[in-house]
Every structure is written in C-alpha cells, then in structure tokens.
C-alpha cells in the first residue's frame, strides 16, 4: 500500500436517527496516497459517513481516527489537514470568488496570502473571474471554485462527495484529471464518493462498498475486480458460426447474451485473445472487442446479494 500509514481509520461507525439506522456498522481504512473510492447505492449511508468524518454529524457510536488522532478529541488538528467538498460546493452569492476563498482560507488554520489565492484561482481555471460575484457563476465554475477552496490551505487529505454531480462530460474529465494530478504531482490522499462507477474504476486505487449502512467489501480495486470475470462483447459478422466455434472449444457456456451481431461472453481477461484467435483463424471477422460494465456489474452483484 502506498505509504503505509493510515490516514483514515473508521471502526464500527453507527449513526441512528431515532429508530432509523442511517449507518449500522461501517469500517474501512484509507492509506496515504490512496485515491479511495467510496461506493454504495442511494441511502447506503455514504453521505452520513462522510459528514461524520468531517464532524458535521455526531456519531452514535464507533471510532474515527484521522492522521492517527481521534476525531472527538483532536478535531481542529484533523480538520486543518483536510480539504473537502460535501455534496455541491456552496458559497456566499453576494461575495466575489476571491472574497469567498479569502473567507474560508482565513479559517483554515494556516496563513494564506493573496498571491496564494490568485495562484489557486488560476490553477482551477478561473483566472479573470476572481472579482465576479458568485451569483453569475455556472455550476461548473462553482465546482472549480469548490476545488480551489479545498486546496487553498494545501491539505494532506481531500474528501470529495459526488464531485462530478451536474457536470458536463468535459467537466467530468477535468475533475478526473485534476484528481489524478493531485495524487501524482502533489501526493495528496483523496477520498472520493461517486455514483459514476466508471470514473471510480478509472482513477481509484482502493475502494469500499457499503450498503444499508454496512461495509460490504473493501480493498484494492484491481484485486477486487481482477478476481471477477469480465463481460466481453464481441462484435462479429457471423453469429451462428461463432457460436459453433465456441461450442467446439467447450466455451459455449461462457455465452451470456447475444444481441444482434454482438455476443456477450463471460470470460476472464486471459481468454480474450484466445477467443479472438479462434474466431479469426476460422473465418469469423471480429469488428470490435469491448469489456462491458465491469465495476458496475460487480457492484450490482454485491448489492443484490
């Protein structure tokens, strides 16, 4: 694991609202340098868990340790080292972008200069808009400003709760690249909760999946997903012949579904070139090979189990 020290340790976190159990038993660890995916369906308790880690919600029971310190006793020490966006980033509409950053920077516990503020604004691509009031900002611009606010005090840990919500495809790509940049160039640890599983799959190094307030599984993304078979779609010119060839090679049981000229096979990654060679050597033209909904499938399987 990158760095070996744990940045986040959550142990048996519980949060009840009267009879309603928002979080029943969540435990996970985040290591330094991780891009940590935090997954779960709606109502699983993701937001509650994240808000509890940020002391927005007080837990019913359980322990949360960040940077080796207990959140209950060393709150200010911990929060000084965290930058976060919880749901959508909201700012003071009647203030400019620059003023908003200054306000939050002043409370960050470290000294932040005006030049630093301008540097961050430029970094997130808002140069020239710093004097504009937030009322005129688009959602994407506010998201960028949210990222700026997160980074202004150079935190060690960045927590992003649904950061791509409401963004267009370009915006999503930008956020993804930014997160990678933060990890690779600035050695930040990122905790990222998202519904867009493909994004998590592309950038997360480790992840935890929770459902109904409980941890289902956690671990390295590659290990968790590689242990599972893939669903691979082969687009061919002769479906019947392809089926025959698979039957001859005792691979017909791997057929998951046939859609028009596309055949979905349940095979491991190693079998992909084998099936491709089988088709090509026997006169079946292969137009495309695509690994479909890997994490999504894994996720749904776990949730529905």
């Amino acid at each position, binding site marked *: 694991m990158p760095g070996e020290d744990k940045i986040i340790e959550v142990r048996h976190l519980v949060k009840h609202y009267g009879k309603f159990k928002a979080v029943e038993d969540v435990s996970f660890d985040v290591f330094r340098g991780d891009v940590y995916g935090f997954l779960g369906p709606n109502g699983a308790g993701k937001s509650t868990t994240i*808000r509890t880690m*940020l*002391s*927005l*919600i*007080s837990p019913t029971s359980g322990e949360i340790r960040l940077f080796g310190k207990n959140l209950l006793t060393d*709150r*200010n*020490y*911990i*929060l*000084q080292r*965290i930058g*976060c966006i*919880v*749901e*959508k*980033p*909201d*700012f*003071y*509409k*009647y*203030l400019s972008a620059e*003023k908003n950053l200054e*306000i*939050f920077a*002043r*409370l*960050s*516990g470290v000294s932040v200069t005006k030049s630093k503020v301008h540097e961050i604004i430029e970094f997130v691509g808002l140069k020239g808009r710093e004097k504009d009031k937030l009322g005129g900002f688009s959602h994407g611009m506010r998201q960028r400003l949210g990222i700026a*606010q997160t980074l202004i005090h150079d935190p060690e840990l960045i927590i992003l709760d649904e950061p791509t919500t409401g963004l267009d495809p370009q915006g999503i790509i930008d956020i993804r690249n930014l997160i990678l940049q933060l990890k690779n160039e600035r050695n930040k640890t990122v905790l990222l909760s998202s519904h867009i599983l493909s994004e998590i799959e592309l950038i997360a190094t480790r992840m935890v999946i929770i459902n109904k307030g409980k941890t289902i599984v956690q671990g390295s993304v590659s290990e968790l997903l590689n242990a599972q078979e893939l669903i691979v779609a082969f687009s061919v010119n002769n479906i019947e012949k392809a089926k025959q060839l698979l039957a001859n090679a005792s691979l017909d049981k791997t057929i998951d579904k046939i859609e028009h000229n596309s055949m979905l096979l349940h095979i491991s990654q190693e079998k992909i070139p084998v099936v491709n060679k089988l088709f090509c050597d026997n006169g079946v033209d292969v137009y495309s090979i695509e690994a479909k909904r890997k994490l999504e499938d894994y996720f749904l399987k776990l949730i529905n189990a």
Partner: protein
Amino acid sequence: MFWKSTYNEFIKIAAKPRSYIGVGAITLIVGIILFAMKADGMNFISFVTAPFEQSLSFEGNILNGNLIAFIILQMLIIHVPLLIALVTGDLVSGEGAMGTIRLLLTKPISRTKILFSKYLAGCAYTFIILLWMGFMALIVGKWLFGTGDLMVLNSDGLIVLQEPDLGWRFALGFSVAFLSLVTVATLSLTLSCFSENSIGPIVSTMAIIILFNIIGALEVPVLQKIQPYLFTTHMMAWRSFFEDPLPTEKIIHSIIILLVHIVGLLGIAMYKFNKKDILS
C-alpha cells in the same frame, strides 16, 4: 482564529444587501419624524403642555434636538428590533439555507467560537444601527432644532431636565437601549440555530416581541405575575434615565433581567448549535 472568524462575519454582514435595509429604514423614519416636527412640532408640544397651559406658560426652546432625540428613541419598541432581527436572525439559518454551513463547520475552529463570532458581529451591527440612530436623532436633530432643556411627559407629570444634565443621561440611556436591542439580537440568533431558513427566526422574533408586549399591557392578575420577568417589560428601561430622581434600583433590576435573558438565550443557542447535525 476567533477574531479571524469575527472579521469574516463582519465582511459577510457588510456585504449582505439586507444589512442596509436597517440603515435605510432608520434614515427614512428619522427623516420623516424630523420633517414632521419641523412642519408641525409646536402642535405636538401643545398636546404635551395642554394640561398645564390654562395657568402656566412655557418659555424657551422646547422643541429642540434633545426632545426630538427622545421621541426618536421611542421607536425602539417595535421598529428597530425588527431591523436588528432581519440581520441577526439570518446569521446561522442563512448559512444553512445557502449551504455554506457545510463548508463553515468543516473548518478547524470550534462551533462555539463560530457562534460567538457571529454573535459578536451581530452585536456590532446592532451597535452601528443604534449609533446611526443616535447620530440622526441627536446630531441632525440639534442641527435642525437647536439645543435646550428636555421636557418629558410621564404618567405622573412633567419633568424638565436641564441641558447640561442631559449628556450623561443620553449616554447611559443609549447604553441600556443597546442592551435591550442586544437581547433582541440574542433571541433572533438563538431562533436562527433552530431553523434552516431566514424568515422563520425573523418572524418568530417579532411574534415573540409583540406577544410579550401584549401580555405586558394586559391588566390580568395571572399575567401580571409574569410581566416583571419578560424582557419586553424592560426594553424601555432606558427611559428611566430621564426621570428625577433617578430610579437606580429599577434600572439595575432591568439590566439584570436583560442580562439573564441574554445569557440564558446564548446558552440555548450554544447547546443547539453544538449538537446540531448538519444534514442539508
């Protein structure tokens, strides 16, 4: 960090358009009163001196800046508390409505300090409003009407306070008036901790003030027992500085009641704000 947070709160209050409603309203209301007094002030004076005018004549500059200032201070009953609540009632709930509370409470500063810094900024705003009112009433009033003795009509008669004796009375009167407005600010801030929108605390504050004023005015034995403990009963304590002899005990009693309310309400606000789960 506390002072940085307080500075932040000043900036926010100064940037909000609603903060200037209070200043504008005071300017307008005081301006109207000054204009009305300039146009027809002597008739108003006649109403006050009428019971005595059969046998007595009042000479001197009765309609002067000091009297105008005194009349304007009477507005403290309903108008200025509303203007204060407009801003202080929004201090916590406004953050919730805007969503900024999520960011604010994830900063390395305790919730108690954040609340106190908001409270301090709210008190500073209250002070500025009162100062502006004092300026308009006393300075502009004296510029327009000149200066002179102050004639006050109480329910037990007329009292004439000489001009050299008025400076400390106004100073202390304004101080106690500030205390009563701070009580209103504290109430609205406390209610703000229980709400996710701005309108609720503002309307609730005014409703409580109106209700308590009504209870205070009713001559019903059951209600008369609680009247001495309502903060609205003591919101006019500043007026006691314009009596002779000075009812020191009564003034101190009023100050204590107001302070008890402030401390009690702040305690409730602190408890609620610290325990509150931020779900929005």
